[in-house]
């Protein structure tokens, strides 16, 4: 059975000037994880807002847990949990205060709310800081508390909008662990992310969105195959470039390409770390000492490169508060071009 179905969702801003969702459809099988992958402004948050009843689409339809999102939003709200990009909890209150308040708002009794709050604090390793105001929490702790707040009534369907954006590597690892636990518990999860490795780690299925459209769908393996898997990259002195290109080509089985400015020789490989060892052996035998050697896993850039022919560029974002157009470009290294 499908837990989430969205069909032909369209949502425009500024009288049609900005298309946040452009005929977007998706579906998620019960008990599985779908990751919506895309750059900022691709429409990820908008689709989450529509499915969680916060935003009405211009056209299209959607059901969550078999319930029509547009016709019975109040019933949908009873079975979903939502944790957004920004930790949406009351910062002046303590973690305990917040969870008890949300428990009460989910209509648990007083005792039950307290019991549930304590259980969740324990589960997310927040018991020690339970009595401190959220203001004093680290980014990772805030996210965990926010996630805890969305789990108070054990939702059937959970929406996580960029759960690890802005977290440090350790925070991300912890968050992933928590999410994996949840998925084992059988919840249906829709997760948006900008990171391919995150989608890879957590999702059964991935859809790639760009300009409000789904541009690819598949398992992470299928997508990777489409992208072309890993690349071997070697940086050497000017003098050794041609010899290195031969070595890399030999290991790869494909012609090596060269980024002249960076003196970087690269080629796709399928054998992973073995390829790394092989190429180092060859270089060593030839008396070449590489300045840098790397095995690059495909990034979101690579996915976009292969799917759209352009690098994943952040699009004009209509900011959530309607503050107007906000154009942020991340410093994208166009590695895929080399």
């Amino acid at each position, binding site marked *: 059975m499908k837990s989430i179905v969205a069909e032909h969702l369209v949502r425009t801003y500024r009288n049609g000037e900005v298309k946040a969702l452009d005929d977007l459809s998706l579906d998620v099988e019960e008990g599985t994880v779908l990751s919506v992958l895309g750059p900022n402004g691709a429409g990820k948050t908008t689709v989450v807002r529509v499915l969680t009843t916060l935003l009405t689409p211009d056209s299209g339809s959607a059901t969550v847990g078999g319930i029509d999102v547009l016709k019975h939003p*109040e019933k949908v709200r009873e079975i979903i949990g*939502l944790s957004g990009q920004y930790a*949406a909890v009351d910062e002046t209150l303590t973690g305990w205060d917040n969870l008890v308040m949300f428990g009460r708002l989910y209509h648990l009794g007083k005792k039950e709310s307290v019991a549930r709050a304590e259980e969740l604090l324990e589960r997310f390793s927040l018991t020690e800081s339970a009595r401190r105001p959220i203001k004093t929490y680290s980014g990772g702790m805030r996210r965990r508390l926010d996630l805890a707040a969305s789990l108070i009534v054990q939702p059937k369907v959970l929406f996580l909008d960029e759960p690890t954006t802005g977290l440090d590597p350790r925070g991300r690892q912890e968050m992933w662990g928590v999410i994996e636990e949840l998925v084992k518990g059988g919840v249906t999860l829709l997760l948006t992310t900008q990171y391919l490795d995150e989608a890879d780690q957590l999702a059964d299925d991935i859809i790639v969105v760009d300009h409000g459209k789904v541009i690819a769908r598949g398992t992470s393996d299928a997508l990777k195959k489409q992208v072309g898997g890993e690349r071997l990259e070697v940086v050497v002195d000017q003098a050794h470039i041609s010899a290195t290109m031969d070595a890399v080509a030999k290991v790869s089985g494909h012609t090596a390409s060269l980024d002249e400015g960076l003196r970087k020789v690269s080629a796709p490989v399928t054998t992973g770390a073995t390829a790394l060892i092989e190429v180092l052996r060859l270089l060593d035998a030839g008396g070449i000492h590489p300045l840098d050697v790397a095995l690059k896993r495909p990034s979101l850039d690579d996915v976009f490169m292969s799917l759209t022919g352009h690098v994943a560029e952040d699009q004009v974002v209509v900011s959530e508060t309607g503050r107007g157009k906000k154009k942020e470009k991340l410093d994208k290294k166009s590695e895929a071009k080399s």
Partner: protein
Amino acid sequence: MNAITDALIITKRQLLQLARVPEVLIFSTIQPVMFVLLFRYVFGGSIATGDPGGYVQLLMPGIFVQTTAFTLAATASGLAEDMTKGLIDRFRSLPISRSALVFGRTLGDGLLNIVVLSVMGLAGFIVGWRPSSGILKIGLAFIFLLAFGYSLSWVGIFAGLSARDARVVQNLSFLITFPLTFLSNAFAPTTGMPRPLQYVAEWNPVSTMVAACRELFGLQNHFGATAHSFPSQHPLTMSLVYMVVILAIFVPLSVRKYSHANKK
């Protein structure tokens, strides 16, 4: 009723905030008390009222009304902050009545007003304010003041929901309430103003509220004595009408704005 318990939980959240950060409550009471002292001692000496008890008798109702009028700004900026922090989205995604959040907040701000008015009343008493009308009418005046603050709270809800930035809302609501409270009979007689302003001041809800409170505290309303317009003749009725009109417009408007997810 779930809707009522939900609203009360939201109110409780606000009270809990005050308990966690007591400075907020302290500063929101210090400010009006400071006004009482400043006006009492800076202007009090130079404004002759010809009444027993002097300027402070006329001043206190004015400052009470001014303070309750500022509820608008408090409500608006509190709500705008919740909006920008994404908390409103979380509340919206919960299976609670859509009006619970806004009702809860207006109630919370109303409770805060009780504390603030009590402290002000006490400060006024210390500097010589002596209402002479008896406990019943004094009580009625305070209920009137709370009702006025509550109705303006709903304007604040609407402003807060329409806002993009908490700071803008705060500034904007002061920009509205400040002239509104001074363009009235609250601190000086309207008769000294240029004619067109006098007209505005007489119809200003702040003036009718102040006049109504002065009556209830047992004073003749000197500051509007020469005015013959309907509001200055019937300040109590007129104030009630204003409150009902404000609520009738802004309650449905705000609840609609809150539940209308489209707008955001």
